[in-house]
């Protein structure tokens, strides 16, 4: 167990790197936001594993906080993109098409 838990953490961290690639390439704002959300969920998993492995149960509360904030961020994003669309400004302008 002492080996398995950190190994899973490393695996999840590598997972994040893959997700990061998506945030990097886009191409649409929604892609980026979606992978940022994925980032949030994976982080929750990492925090829960760390809580077990480092024996610090308080990290579970931090994980709970992450879950709640991720939901709120997603709503903020939806409002932002729809709000932009409602003002007849194409949401794609937000991502600047290409870096």
């Amino acid at each position, binding site marked *: 167990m002492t080996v398995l838990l950190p190994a899973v953490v490393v695996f999840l961290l590598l997972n994040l790197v893959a997700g990061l690639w998506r945030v990097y390439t886009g191409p649409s704002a929604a892609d980026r936001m979606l992978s940022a959300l994925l980032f949030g969920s994976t982080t929750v998993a990492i925090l829960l594993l760390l809580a077990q492995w480092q024996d610090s149960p308080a990290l579970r509360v931090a994980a709970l906080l992450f879950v709640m904030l991720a*939901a709120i961020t997603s709503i903020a994003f939806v409002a932002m993109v*729809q709000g932009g669309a409602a003002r007849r400004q194409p949401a794609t302008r937000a991502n600047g098409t290409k*870096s």
Partner: protein
Amino acid sequence: MSLAIDLLIATGLVVLAWQALVGGSLFRGIVMFIVFGLTMALAWARLGSPDLAMAEAAIGAGVTGALLMIAYWRLRALGANRPAPRSPLRARVALGVGLLSAVLVAMIGLAAVGAIGPGGEAGQALAEALPATGLGNPITGVLVIFRNLDTLLEVAVLLAAYVASRAVMGDDKAALPLPPAQDAPLVGALVAVLAPLAVLVAIYLLKAGSQLPGGAFQAGAVLAAGGVLLMLAGRLHPAPLCGVGLRIALVAGTVVFSGVGLIMLALGQPLLAIPGTWAVYLIETAMMISIGATLVLLFAGSAGLTGTPRR
């Protein structure tokens, strides 16, 4: 294995900082910044500070990210997001300065880490003094009892930020535009669950803060996140005037904190002495309310808030 975890997170921080700050579109930069904040939270978790992990996630990434997004949205609505070109010379100088500062910080940081002596004298004093207070969380102890002047002034900083933002807005401005709320069925359902949950979590964090990680700042940030949620879902609207209740909420933290401290002085105790655990809870509750209210108002970019009658 644990070093591998640290290395991965640390590398992630560097890459994300680069992604957030250099090149690419501004919007991508903001998203990357939020992800950077979440990674910082992981770093704090690895450094054994769940308190900071929570604060970083809620304030550093969550609320700051929301503020940056709304500012971006407003700037775009103003049509003011065009980038300006830079001279290549300046970029080269900047690269030099950046590299130099990184090397400098690394050198002095490594020297500082290498030169660690017996550990912080103040930190040891903290560990010795904590049991007498009845608190289990040293961070809450520092913030509310041992170094509470910092905390009090910091709530005043938040108040100053709000008043200064109001000063920037000027008289004539009712409120800055928010993205128009959409009637999405899912949003309504989510809000119905999340808003009460935010209050519940905030109260839990406040309650837990005396013994476990948590406390007024994290709780206030969660309340603020709830308020932002209500605003984005169109349940709360920016208003040109600040109601009395809201105004009291804004200053409650400063007033209750100073009030307790000054009453103790009048009773012959030291200035800002905290009489007991009940006072800790009282002060933390007031601070939570102030922090939440101020952050929501800063997000709204307005003096006050109004609710919407049900449609």
